[in-house]
């Protein structure tokens, strides 16, 4: 593994922007293309919003944890909340109503699934929820994130 960044954001809508800024820096440093960075921004934003809204249910004293782990050919992003757990069966699967028109809400998980290469959702009742997202680094530019580079360059913080 290359760089590991761990951070926490307050459980307030809008606070995800700080985490997004950090994720963008890491992704750009790894050599992700601009369009993949945009995908990452939206996927991470939606995961954080879900954590704040559905996981932590807007509780003031809760936090959202974000971990960015860079590997040679991928970036793994994990978003953790402290909620009671979400029933995966309750996550909307249908995206259109009977009239073929898009339904109004529930696009968070849908967007994440469609914007990252791999996505998994782990629900631990009493211990919160984890959303893990992996973006593959394609056409890695030469000289970017060479092996052993930043191996000990880990960061932790609260935003």
């Amino acid at each position, binding site marked *: 593994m290359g760089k590991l960044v761990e951070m926490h954001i307050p459980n307030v809508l*809008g606070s995800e922007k700080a985490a997004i800024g950090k994720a963008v820096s890491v992704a750009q440093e790894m050599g992700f293309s601009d369009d993949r960075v945009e995908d990452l921004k*939206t996927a991470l934003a*939606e995961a954080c*919003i879900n954590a704040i809204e559905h996981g932590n249910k807007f509780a003031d004293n809760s936090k959202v944890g974000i971990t960015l782990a860079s590997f040679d050919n991928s970036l793994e992003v994990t978003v953790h909340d402290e909620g009671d757990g979400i029933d995966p069966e309750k996550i909307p699967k249908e995206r259109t109503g009977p009239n073929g028109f898009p339904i109004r809400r529930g*696009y968070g998980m*849908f*967007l994440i699934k*469609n914007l990252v290469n791999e996505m998994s959702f782990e629900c631990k009742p009493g211990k919160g929820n984890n959303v893990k997202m992996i973006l593959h680094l394609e056409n890695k530019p030469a000289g970017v994130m060479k092996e052993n580079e930043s191996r000990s360059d880990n960061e932790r913080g609260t935003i």
Partner: protein
Amino acid sequence: MSKDINVSTSQANDVVFIDIQGDITAVTGEVVKEAYGADNVTNSSMILLRFAKDCYINSGGLAFLIDIASEGRKKGQKISATGLSEHFQKIFHMVGLTRCISLFATEEEAMNNF
């Protein structure tokens, strides 16, 4: 007006413009919907959403745009949009918004297609 969004409306002949700058989210999306609800907008048959290039839209904001598209379809309005980044054009396609909001690269193209 929310500090994260700036929305204004104007009109040229039969086309109403809704100019949107900033973040469209669950918190600020109501501002866009209010603009759409103004008498001159909601009664117009042609509406052009002009997004600033750096507009940010999340799933909460998409919900309000879906509301507008849904109402527009019921009223038989033609709604187009311009200015969206390639990323958010892709998002519009993903969620199916392009079935009711036509996307154009330039305002001129959008106007020619009303």
